[in-house]
């Protein structure tokens, strides 16, 4: 049974849900700020699940109390990269955690081509499998069209 029948990339929180509205994103950011986490915005156009290091859009925003400023940055990023994956991360700096505690997509390209299975023959007719994104067949910057 296919749990993800479309080609939507399912990385991070809420990725199986329909796209979050601005009001919902604001609520999530408010939750992160309430917990005193640093919020940052990142983007990429390479959707492979092992691609964990995305490009940062501006510095992480520490010491903020209101989500409106962060929403400004998110919309700025959407305007600059309308056809990239954009995610919002919240970093928990508490001792013992010191890692991102929230990460969810806020923007996707209009057409996500999905993934294909690539088989490679290794020694002794063993097959090694990997998945490859159809988008990465094209060079960076041209992957999702204008």
């Amino acid at each position, binding site marked *: 049974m296919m749990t993800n029948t479309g080609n939507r990339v399912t990385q991070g929180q809420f990725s199986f849900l329909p796209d979050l509205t601005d009001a919902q994103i604001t609520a999530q950011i408010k939750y992160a700020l309430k917990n005193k986490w640093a919020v940052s915005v990142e983007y990429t156009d390479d959707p492979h699940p092992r691609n964990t290091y995305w490009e940062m859009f*501006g510095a992480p*925003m520490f*010491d*903020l*109390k*209101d*989500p*409106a*400023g*962060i929403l*400004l*940055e998110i919309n700025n990023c959407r305007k600059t990269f309308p056809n990239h994956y954009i995610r919002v991360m919240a970093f928990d700096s508490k001792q013992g955690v010191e890692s991102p505690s929230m990460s969810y997509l806020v923007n996707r390209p209009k057409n996500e081509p999905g993934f294909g299975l690539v088989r490679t023959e290794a020694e002794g007719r063993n097959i090694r499998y990997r998945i490859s994104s159809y988008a990465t067949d094209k060079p960076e910057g041209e992957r999702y069209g204008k």
Partner: protein
Amino acid sequence: MNDPNTNDEKAVDLAAAFRDSHIQEVLDKLDRELIGLKPVKTRIRETAALLLVDRLRKQMNLSAGAPSLHMCFTGNPGTGKTTVALRMAEILHHLGYIRRPDVVSVTRDDLVGQYIGHTAPKTKEVLKKAMGGVLFIDEAYYLYKPENERDYGAESIEILLQIMENNRDDLVVILAGYKDRMDKFFQSNPGMSSRIAHHVDFPDYSPDELVSIAKLMLEKMQYAFSPDAATAFRDYIERRQSLPHFANARSVRNALDRARLRQANRLFATQLGEITKKQLMTLESDDIRASRVFKDGVADSA
């Protein structure tokens, strides 16, 4: 069928709504803690009334767009511009116009950078920090320096203008400064002037108001005037007002500090042995009449 939701004659109790909103408490507290400032209090009262009417309109399913709340405070030194701006966040939050009762207070240095490309991120950082509350820009005219072509103040003004227009329900901007220089600033920046809905001028205080302010300050510092000292102080104010560099409430505060100094020295010189609490707390008329304003007709300082 007479649908009550579309009936124009439907009524709500204005008096009850006023009582329930506790707006009167806010106005009373303001009256008690700030002396004089009639135009400011009037404007706050008017804004509170608008808020109440907006709420009632919402109850009746009428649209109620948030009004523009950006303000400009002008007036002479020491008339209470910064004090009121800091209070404004508390008031607006209580009235329900802003989300947090916090003020971010900046001057030109916090907004303008030193090199190309430095200003925009600096200003944006400050704006992000202030979102949801009040941004108070003191001495706003320093942002714009037309004589220096390498000045980056104009960039900061542009970003401010955009945010003031597009994020009206997220941020309230309050500018403050001296009247003549603010007028010149607005003349050269008509965009800024048109976005400011409330221009409030802070008038100079009257001698009676200054004496009341002095009494309030002393109460906070746990001192008190003796009856003679009170008359002496009023005398002092009337003479000092006509001398140059009079800074209203700030001059009063400085005068009180000097009076405390003289009181301390008087107690040292004349009180041998035990001192009562009352003596420590009371300022006598000598402490005030020793001022150079009485003797030479010259100000001690501002």
